């Protein structure tokens, strides 16, 4: 016991100036969410957070695809039926027509049950929390996309060099 009350150090110097850059390079539903979840948590911790979308990650900010990302377990041997952890789903089944729609629906339901927002709403929350969204110049050129094709919250289409400049001193994650 001391005379001074013991108070959590919410705004201590150790975390001041902390910065995180997440490179989102995948457009599958299951690979899109980790970056969004980590970004959201980082912002809630007062960490300056930037998301840089590149290659297939463009589907997360392309207006035509962002609300409709899909999940397939083709090539993913860690796919088990709920609770059946000793048994991997046969890979051949994943290749059947219509299977991606089924597995996407299953994953979306599991996410909704946990109140995890969909990609467009997640990006909205990240922006409202002070996060920054950037699109990769080369990916935009490859896919023949310009700013009007992208989610309004994207601050700009920038080069890898620009991204590295804004990442100075940041912790970086490549997903």
């Amino acid at each position, binding site marked *: 016991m001391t005379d001074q*009350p013991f*108070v959590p150090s*919410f705004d201590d110097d150790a975390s001041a100036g902390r910065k995180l850059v997440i490179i989102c390079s995948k457009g599958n539903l299951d690979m899109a969410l980790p970056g969004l979840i980590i970004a959201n948590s980082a912002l809630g911790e007062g960490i300056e957070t930037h998301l840089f979308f590149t290659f297939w990650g463009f589907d997360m900010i392309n207006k035509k695809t962002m609300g409709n990302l899909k999940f397939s377990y083709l090539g993913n041997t860690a796919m088990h039926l709920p609770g059946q952890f000793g048994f991997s789903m046969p890979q051949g089944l994943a290749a059947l027509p219509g299977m991606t729609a089924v597995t996407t629906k299953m994953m979306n339901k599991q996410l909704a049950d946990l109140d995890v927002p969909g990609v467009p709403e997640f990006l909205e929350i990240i922006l409202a929390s*002070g996060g920054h969204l950037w699109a990769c110049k080369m990916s935009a050129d490859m896919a023949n996309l310009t700013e009007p094709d992208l989610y309004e919250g994207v601050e700009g289409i920038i080069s890898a060099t620009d991204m590295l400049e804004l990442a100075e001193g940041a912790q970086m994650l490549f997903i």
Partner: protein
Amino acid sequence: MPTTTIAGHEVEVNEEGFLTKPSQWTEDLGTALAGLIGIELTDDHWKVIKFLRSDYDAMGETATLRRVSTQMGLPVKQLFTLFPGKPAKKMSYVAGLPKPKGCV
């Protein structure tokens, strides 16, 4: 568990300084806790704190920012304005609750 005295109340806290017994919390204490982290409570703050308290009673765990936002119909941006920097931790601290465990 260590104890600390806040505004004349002796309370149990964990190693970070969060109250460990939600039952030791009172509204007066909430005002004092907020003052200690530089927040002057308005009606809008109190609505959030009261939601957190009642939701904790019902669910047995502290609501995440997402849950506060969807259940109360409050924009996330406003929560960042009310409790700047680390909103989820700050609001649960003021409400005398553990910090939220959920990821989203």
